[in-house]
């Protein structure tokens, strides 16, 4: 991460603009690692000011994928704070990026939920349909699949 990912311009910009960053060494800061149940590196945590873990991930991330991780983490934090419009912006940045990554399916899932929570009730079905079309084999597709059944049932009732 230190050699390849952190020097990347988009990663630097996101970390500098949106986060305060620190790199504890796992075999030195043992108590801290134990506190947050981290026993593998890279162990990537996103905390709020009360040390609550808002999002976590493990393993090396190449730059473009890490940009997406940072935006998904930021979107998740905004979502958990109830700032749904800000969450929509962060998740959209990932889902609309031309560089593909496995995190785009996760971003589309939560983008739909954030749109729903912001008052755009139809946004949930539209966004999850995009998720099912673009990432049918992702871990997130089965969680959103019921939306098509629900939409079809609604159409039969009104049709």
């Amino acid at each position, binding site marked *: 991460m230190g050699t390849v990912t952190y020097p990347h311009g988009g990663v630097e910009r996101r970390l500098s603009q949106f986060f305060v*960053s*620190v790199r504890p060494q*796992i075999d030195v800061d043992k108590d801290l*690692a134990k506190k*947050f149940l*981290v026993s593998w*590196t890279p162990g990537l*945590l996103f905390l709020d*000011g009360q*040390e609550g873990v808002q999002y976590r991930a493990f393993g090396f991330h190449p730059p473009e994928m890490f940009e997406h991780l940072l935006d998904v983490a930021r979107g998740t934090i905004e979502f958990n704070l109830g700032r749904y419009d800000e969450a929509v912006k962060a998740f959209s940045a990932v889902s609309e990026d031309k560089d593909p990554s496995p995190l785009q399916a996760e971003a589309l899932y939560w983008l739909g939920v954030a749109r729903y929570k912001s008052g755009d009730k139809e946004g949930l079905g539209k966004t999850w349909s995009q998720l099912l079309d673009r990432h049918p084999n992702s871990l997130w597709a089965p969680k959103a699949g019921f939306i098509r059944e629900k939409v079809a049932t609604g159409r039969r009732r009104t049709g």
Partner: protein
Amino acid sequence: MTIAWEKDYGSALARAKSENKPLFVDFFSPT
């Protein structure tokens, strides 16, 4: 734009609170 890494967790948490930003923690291994 260079990342301003904090030297330790305590100072990072304090800065995160004062700047009202989330804290990103990367546990790393030197090997």
